[in-house]
């Protein structure tokens, strides 16, 4: 047998140092790779990154904009994380976000300005969640009852949702369209009482709602009976079945919950900074960015909050790049690279590499069980 140069083996207990170190290394690696491309096109990457840092965190206004950008990412990140943990590949966060915005703004416009602000805001957010869940259901039900692969269906639904939003605003005289906009079609502003108040430049209370919803999801999955059952299903559906858990129901519910969270993001966006169903402001790729957030956070629900702020910072820094002659696409490139390295990082979190002549330290050595290879 040829001597191998190194051995790859599964890691036992993953220390927090590895769990934190790998995502950080992923981000740094992404900056390096993007930096190389920047350099090749004649730009100094350090200058660019400094500019981005300044735009995102350098001024109080900047910080507020960063947090505004982070708000929906917290929620779409949670949406992706809870689905992926169950191996439900919901990549339709984009579409569920848009449907959340559509339903939220629709309900707000329909209810008018009679109700107290607090009630309106709650209704709008809930409506957003319902919109997202409903959109997810179109893919969830075939998945659970017919075994239809949800990757393509959720992906296609993104484009349908986008077209639907365009139709409502550009393609028709729907109630969502602003009757007073004469020059160029745009979304009708929702009633004032449905708007979440700003308190720090343009930053609204929405950030707190988003954080609260994220914490609620964390509580739901981590601290309730239902959440425990869900975690068992996510780990091994066979074991869940053996323990008497209804696997199909759990998968369906989590899928819908994932859609709901993306929908919350849409609803919050409309009730927050945007104030209307506005295609240009909403077509931001927040669903896909949410997947990046979830992956970098290792699917840990609380870790999503700081990671979302990082992504929000990147998004916010984008426009400032134009001023120094660098394409805003740099941000997308960076985010894509971060996801690539985050995904590769998973490998290093789950496995370790060692030289064959070096014995693994005693502390982490446990005897693995070869269950399904039946030597007999």
């Amino acid at each position, binding site marked *: *047998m040829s001597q191998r140069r190194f051995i790859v083996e599964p890691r*036992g*207990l993953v220390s927090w140092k590895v769990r934190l170190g790998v995502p950080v290394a992923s981000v740094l690696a992404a900056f390096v790779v993007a930096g190389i491309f920047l350099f090749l096109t004649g730009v100094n990457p350090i200058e660019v990154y400094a500019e981005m840092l300044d735009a995102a965190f350098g001024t109080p206004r900047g910080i507020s904009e960063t947090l505004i950008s982070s708000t929906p990412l917290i929620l779409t990140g949670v949406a992706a994380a809870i689905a992926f943990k169950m191996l439900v590949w919901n990549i339709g966060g984009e579409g569920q976000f848009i449907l959340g915005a559509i339903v939220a703004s629709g309900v707000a416009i329909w209810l008018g300005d009679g109700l107290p602000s607090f009630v309106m805001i709650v209704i709008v957010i809930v409506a957003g969640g319902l919109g997202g869940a409903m959109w997810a259901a179109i893919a969830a039900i075939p998945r659970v009852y017919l075994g239809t692969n949800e990757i393509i269906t959720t992906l296609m639904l993104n484009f349908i949702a986008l077209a639907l939003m365009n139709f409502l605003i550009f393609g028709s005289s729907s109630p969502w369209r602003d009757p007073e906009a004469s020059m160029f079609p745009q979304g009708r502003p929702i009633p004032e009482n449905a708007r979440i108040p700003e308190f720090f430049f343009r930053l609204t209370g929405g950030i707190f709602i988003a954080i609260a919803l994220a914490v609620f999801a964390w509580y739901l999955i*981590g*601290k*309730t*009976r*239902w*959440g*425990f*059952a869900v*975690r*068992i299903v996510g*780990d*091994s559906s*066979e*074991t*869940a*079945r*053996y*323990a*008497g*858990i209804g696997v199909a129901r759990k998968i369906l519910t989590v899928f819908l919950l994932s859609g709901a969270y993306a929908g919350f993001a849409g609803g919050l966006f409309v009730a927050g900074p945007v104030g209307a169903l506005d295609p240009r402001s909403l077509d931001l790729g927040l669903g896909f960015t949410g997947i990046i957030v979830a992956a970098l956070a290792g699917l840990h629900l609380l870790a999503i909050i700081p990671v979302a702020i990082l992504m929000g910072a990147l998004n916010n820094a984008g426009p400032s790049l134009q001023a120094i002659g660098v394409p805003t696409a740099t941000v997308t490139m960076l985010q894509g690279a971060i996801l690539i390295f985050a995904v590769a990082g998973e490998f290093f979190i789950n496995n370790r590499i060692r030289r064959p002549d070096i014995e693994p330290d005693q502390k982490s050595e*446990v*005897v*693995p*069980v*070869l*269950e*399904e*290879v*039946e*030597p*007999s």
Partner: protein
Amino acid sequence: MTQTSPDTLAVELCGVDKSFYGVKANDDVDFKLAQGEVHALLGENGAGKSTLCSILAGLYRPDSGDVFFEGEEVTFKNPKEALAAGVGMVYQHFRLVSNLTVAENFALGHPDTGVRLNQKQIHKEAKELGEKYDLPIDPAARIWQLSVGEQQRVEILKLLYRNVKILILDEPTAVLTPQEGQALFKTMRQMAAEGRSVIFVSHKLDEVKQVSDRVTVLRNGQTVGGVATADADIKELARMMVGRDLVLPTRDTTEDFGEVMFSVKDIHVPGDRGLEAVNGMSFDIRTGEIIGIAGVSGNGQRELAQGLVGLRTPTAGTVVLDGVDVTKQTVLQHIKAKLGYVPQSRLGMGLAPGLTTEENLAIKAYRSPPFSKGRRLVNSAFRTEGDRVVEEYDIRGVRPGLPIRLLSGGNLQKALVAREIEMEPKVLILRSPTRGLDVGATEQVRNLILKEQARGVAILLISEDLDELLALSDRLLVIFEGEIVGEMPADEATAERLGLLMSGQAEEVSS
């Protein structure tokens, strides 16, 4: 066929060892196969037959020892090399690509280097081959459309298409009807007549007697004996097969049993392919009684256990637990009715591999206090309960946050059994509870079972390990092809009697 002198052994193994993670599957094994011979490899599960065959077929490499093929020493790096040398194996789980046609499966990986795939030619050749060996097949059929017997024919013909000299069949009759089995034996003899050699792995004595020229018996990884079939005595073969082992905790024979706690009447359970895996079994278990079901795996044990706990729905018959008919109830209802189940698949079913030990200990009990208060989980209870159980049952290797899959086999099993016991079952069903465990862990698990018996639990022990069954059971049943073929109280049971029944031999009625 290439010219080798007829005296040269087709295959010889000398002193072959093979271990997996410290467990010795083959221990100093010697094996001789002559040309033109049908050679049976006899032994129970865990005896080392499959490992031996896998080494011959190039799937594994021996840790030590020599392998000779037609007089020359060989080391096969992979199955492809073995096939090129003329050794092919038909595994219990077929290596056929389900969505491709028969002809395509024939052609796959064939050393012929033409770019073009001449479907017509292959169809012709396949059909002719099938006719020659009286194993008719339709080359255009897709594998998933074929019955299991037909698929096996394809597997065998596939190897003949490559002109193998040595054909290894691993428990081939397990999936065949009696008639198909007879057809297979005809084919085997035909191949032997051509000068090819066949290794026939089995645990069924009458088949071994019928078709083989020689028999080699393996037990616990070692060769126990090799005889010409004509000279072999069935009883002697059975005894060689099962043997005896060390003394471990055994039951106390003077037990008073209580009332019938678990009553199974004429139960029929479907298998995976639509056929019935359990064809009408009936038995009762009283409180404090341990009923053992002996049998070689693949005779319906899995389906029986699943049918009894709600993972599979019986098509007929009844299962009554403490007076309640639970036959068609859900798994959860069975759990709530106080039925405990230790499955054979530890990490695949009994335990969730990625969750921690304390989480796994709670997967059935989490719905009520102390693990939850209302809808809320009480995390501290997980910890305290977890610590308590780990301490009490001596489960080693547990660390906070450690996924349970990293525990050793013995500790996994202790955790699994501990959990079921902590649920305070009235009836406990266990499958192969000490399989793959070392002596220490085996002792601990057996003690746990006996303690439950003392508590008055009705216990069903389904196992392939005769030592375990003989040591623990009060009464023994033998399962063969989905039916009970023998029943006896423990003090009348011997390994020999059980071995015979497990191999499908009817008992002689003693006058």
